[in-house]
Every structure is written in structure tokens, then in C-alpha cells.
């Protein structure tokens, strides 16, 4: 059951100030997240999706800075809150499983001890017994036993590590979970496990999930709505099924066409070229150097704005304006 809008990002801009120049990682992103839905954010590596996630949780570290924009959670602008006040939101209302977090587990500490440390760092005060109880409940719903907490990271497979991290993020029963590439680097079976968990989260607990991944097959299966990002901007938004059946933006189309699948005899195509330099992005539409529908004179001068194509769908492409 999809409900009201609980998170709205307005014109968010995040940059990294490097020696080479200002890397505009997130350049004017506006999005909405509804209660009980899985919103997928897709795009190649380097398009800014991870930065977007970090920005929502105010985890952008120097040389990165949030330049402007609003992140409204139930009407409250999270970016304007004081550090202490915001802490009440992070992990309790909005939880985060960063990309590659399973690799940053301390190899010489048991999982349980690390979790306690992490919770302490976030300033979460919770009694040990209560913690145990909640962990047990969450872990078993994922098909894991609490004995897993007494192990060391290297004793667990990638899939298990990922699931325990997701379990940790759910301790305080957050309303929103942001998962950055939760299935990457896992083998198919572990992937399936994680995907099932995320779907159960949505179905059984009503958690809203922002699913960030470049894997379009995973997106196809899990997300209700999708936002496609390219070079720091959103190029298309809409219900997943509609997007897959009829992709509007050329980039979206290429992404979908590159997905291989069993039984498909057609040779797959890749997207030509490499992602653009975010310090000096191409003029006009950022995708135009790689776009099969490039219109010279138009696409390299005008920058397409995100406009509504139909109910619930928007696209940023000069083919539609």
C-alpha cells in the first residue's frame, strides 16, 4: 500500500571541492519518496547516486559540501537541523547501509562488539536485553541465527555480512532505509537472499526503501518507482513497469537494453563512451556526446529540464519538449 509522501528532496546540490576544480556530483536533484514504496535510483558508477544518499543522511565529508537544497522529512528540513537534533533522525527514522560496508567491518572484532560500537557512535541508547531481543527478531526474519553475532567477519560469507548489516540498520525500526548497492559483489544466491529481505521489509513492515544500484535487473524486480540519474542529474522518473515497457529517455533505453537474460538470443549492446567529467560537464544536455538521438545545435546548447510526460512520469530530454 503506497501512502503519502514522506521524503521530499528539493533542488539538492552537492559538490566536491578538489584541486582540479569543483566536482558537481549532485546538481539540482529533486525527488519524492512515498510511504511503503521502494524507490530505485539507477545509473552508472560516478553518476552521483551514492553522494545523494550520503547527503540525505548528512554524511558528506570534506572536500564534499552540500551547497544548497532541502531534504524534507515529513515537512522538516533535515539539512537545517542542528547536529544533535539530526542525530535523532539518523538511524532511528532514516537508516543507511552504505556501499561496500561489508568490507569495512573490523576483521579483529566480533560482529556483536562492532554493532555495539556503531550504535554507541550514533548516540543510540538502548538496553542490552532490548537490543538482543530486537536483533533476534530481525535476524530470524532474515533467516539468520543470533549466533552469527558472535562470529568474526571473515567467518561469514558476503551475503551473510550484508544481511547482518541490514539487520543492524533496522534496530530502531526506521521508516526509511537507504541501501546503496546492497547486492553488488554478491553471488546470485546471496543476492536473492538480500532481495527477498528488502521486499519483505516493504511488504511486512511498510518500510520505504531507497534502493541505489546500477543493476537494472535488480531494479526491475524490486523497485516500484525508479529515478534514473546521469552525471548528477535526474533524467527520468516513473513507475518501474512503465519505464521498462516504454523507456522515454535514450539513456534509460540503453540501460534497459544492456540487461542480459536467459533465453534471450539477441546480442546485448553496451553504452558507448565513458561517463562525463563532472568538473566540466558537456554543455547543454550532459548525455549528448553518447546519445544515439543527438540533435546537433539543440542538444549541445540547451539543457533539458525535467518535465512531466504523463501522470507520474517525468523525463529530461529535448526530444519531448
Amino acid at each position, binding site marked *: 500500500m503506497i501512502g503519502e509522501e514522506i521524503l521530499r528532496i528539493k533542488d539538492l546540490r552537492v559538490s566536491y571541492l578538489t584541486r582540479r576544480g569543483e566536482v558537481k556530483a549532485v546538481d539540482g536533484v529533486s525527488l519524492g519518496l512515498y510511504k511503503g514504496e521502494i524507490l530505485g535510483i539507477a545509473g552508472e558508477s560516478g553518476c552521483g547516486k551514492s553522494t545523494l544518499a550520503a547527503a540525505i543522511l548528512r554524511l558528506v565529508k570534506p572536500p564534499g559540501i552540500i551547497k544548497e537544497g532541502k531534504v524534507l522529512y515529513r515537512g522538516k528540513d533535515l539539512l537545517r537541523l542542528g547536529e544533535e537534533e539530526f542525530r535523532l533522525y539518523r538511524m532511528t527514522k532514516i537508516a543507511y547501509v552504505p556501499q561496500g560496508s561489508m568490507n569495512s567491518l573490523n576483521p579483529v572484532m566480533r560482529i556483536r562488539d562492532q554493532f555495539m560500537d556503531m550504535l554507541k557512535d550514533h548516540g543510540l541508547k538502548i538496553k542490552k536485553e532490548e537490543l538482543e531481543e530486537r536483533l533476534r527478531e530481525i535476524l530470524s526474519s532474515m533467516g539468520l541465527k543470533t549466533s552469527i553475532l558472535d562470529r568474526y567477519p571473515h567467518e561469514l560469507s558476503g551475503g*551473510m555480512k550484508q544481511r547482518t548489516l541490514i539487520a543492524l540498520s533496522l534496530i530502531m525500526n526506521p521508516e526509511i532505509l537507504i541501501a546503496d548497492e546492497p547486492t553488488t559483489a554478491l553471488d546470485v544466491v546471496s543476492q536473492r537472499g538480500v532481495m527477498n529481505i528488502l521486499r519483505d521489509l516493504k511488504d511486512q513492515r511498510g518500510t520505504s526503501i531507497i534502493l541505489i544500484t546500477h543493476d537494472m535487473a535488480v531494479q526491475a524486480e524490486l523497485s516500484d518507482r525508479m529515478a534514473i540519474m546521469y552525471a548528477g542529474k535526474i533524467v527520468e522518473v516513473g513507475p518501474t513497469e512503465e519505464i521498462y515497457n516504454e523507456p522515454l529517455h535514450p539513456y534509460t533505453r540503453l540501460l534497459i537494453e544492456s540487461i*542480459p537474460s536467459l533465453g534471450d538470443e539477441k546480442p546485448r549492446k553496451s553504452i558507448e563512451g565513458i561517463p562525463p567529467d563532472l568538473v566540466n560537464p558537456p554543455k547543454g544536455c550532459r548525455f549528448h556526446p553518447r546519445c544515439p538521438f543527438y540533435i546537433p545545435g539543440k542538444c549541445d546548447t540547451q539543457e533539458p529540464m525535467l518535465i512531466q510526460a504523463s501522470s507520474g512520469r517525468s523525463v529530461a530530454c529535448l526530444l519531448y519538449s
Partner: protein
Amino acid sequence: MESVYKIYRVRKFLRAENIVAVEDFNIAINDDQPIVVTLAGESGSGKTTVAKMILRLEEPTKGVVRYRGVDLKRLRGEIWRRYRREVQAVFQDPYSAFNPLHRIETVLRIPLKRLGVATSNQEIDLIIRKSLEDVGLDPGKVLSKYPRQLSGGERQRVMIARAISLQPKLIVADEPVSMLDASIRASIINILKDLRDRKGVSILYITHDLNTAYGISDEIIIMYRGSIVERGPAKKVLLEPLHPYTRLLIESLPKPRPTRKILKSREISIYEDTATPQHGCKFYPRCPLRMDKCLNMKPPLISVGDREVACYLYGE
């Protein structure tokens, strides 16, 4: 028919723990007809260990790996160099596969010189350029750069260029695309396909992602915890899997078209960390179709038409 290499009944134990990494693995690749063999399985299935044994980066504890009829341990001198030329590799992680201190030109030069493929600098330059062009890279733009200045996809291409510059007969590709963005995997797979079709190179394609395997493989071998559980012509095995584990793998794949199918694969998660049973079929604890018989003795590879399955469901 000269085999490029062959493995007989190989077992490999990991030191200090007596884990059987690979058990009873046989494969023969001949050089008369280029073929893409996919070796598929989860992490821990032993597929990387097989690759390392073929490349002589590790040695089998039991059994033999032969190159053109000669045991790898006995290769010396000229035939050793020939082996190193004809059997090459592409690795999974484009971020750690290159020494960050070497330029791409150096990376491509070293094997050519060390393996005596060409002697004069002119020849070497020519070969390097041609190889880069073959993988779709512009030599002028790439040669003087350091690995960190290239994208993941470009680095993988360089790795492939390096391999083909030596004119190999067999390329062992260990998860070559799993660390790349899904959208650029296709181009790398196409290059590999091209190698088979136009250059007569056989490929041992190791992966856990069966979606990518479909378009490219001729034959497929499914491994589970060190043993082969199914093998046969790729399209048949993938579209009509016989072994329960193969079925599990196929069902676990994310479906590329949004469908609302609910998959009953809950059992998988729970049993993931089960210790491997000492007797009988290794897949027993996770198998939805198991029988008592399966616990007693490990099922051998049973022939079913032009395929083989290690499962009692298909015979004795």
C-alpha cells in the same frame, strides 16, 4: 587432436584446514575447435581454484594438469614459455589487477618481452597497438596513462588486450565483468565472444552470474562446493536445468522484466552456512528433492543424453 590442457581427478586441500576446495574435476579443451566453457557456481564453489590450477598459480594436491600432453610441473624452457603464451588470464578486479605504478604501455610491454613474442621494439609496438584497437581502445589515448586514470571498463579491455597480444589459445576469464557496471558488461562479453568467433580462442568463462553466461557459452559446468554437479551444452542446461542446485541458481536470478513473481526461495538463506556433509551429496541439506539415498553415497556424474548430472534423481 592435441589438447591444450586437461585435468584429471584433481583434489586440492587448503592448508591447515583440510577443506577440499576442488574435488574430482575433469575438463579437456582441445585446440582444434575454439569453445567457450562456462564454469559457474557460488563463491566457495572452487571455480577460482580451478582457474589458478590451470594457470599454474597453484598446484593440485592430487591429479594432473596437462598442457599439450605434458604435466604442468614438468614444463621447462621453450615449452614453458609457449604454455605461458597460449594460456592467459583476465581477472575479476580491474582495480587491483594492475600495479598502480606502471603505465599501460609498460603493462603491455612486459609480457611480450618476457615471453619472447617479439624482439624488436618496432614489432612490440605494432602488436600492442593492434591489440588495443582490437578491444576498441585508442592506443594514442591509453598507452601513456596510469591505471587509475582509466575507468573500470577500460581497464578490463586493457587486460584483455594484454592477453590477446600474446596470441593465446585459451583465456581463463575469472569473473571478468562482475565488478563492472551492468550497462557496460555487454561490450566486454562481446569482445570475448568475438575472440572465439574470429580469432579461434577458447575461453574458460568463470562466473556466478548465469545471465551473462547465456549469450556466450557453448558448454557449461556447474560447480557446488568443489564438485561438478552438472555439465553439458549451455543453452540446454540453462533452459532446462536438471540438478536441483542448477534450478536454484536459475530461479535466484533477478528477472529483467518487472514481474510480480514471488519466489519461494526462503530455504536457501537459512542453510547457507551449513557445514558440508561428510558423506553423500553435498547439496543434501539444501535440496528440496532429497532422498535418503542421497545421504549415503555421493552421486556420481550420470549421463543424461549429451549431459551429465550428479544426482540420484536421474539414475543410479
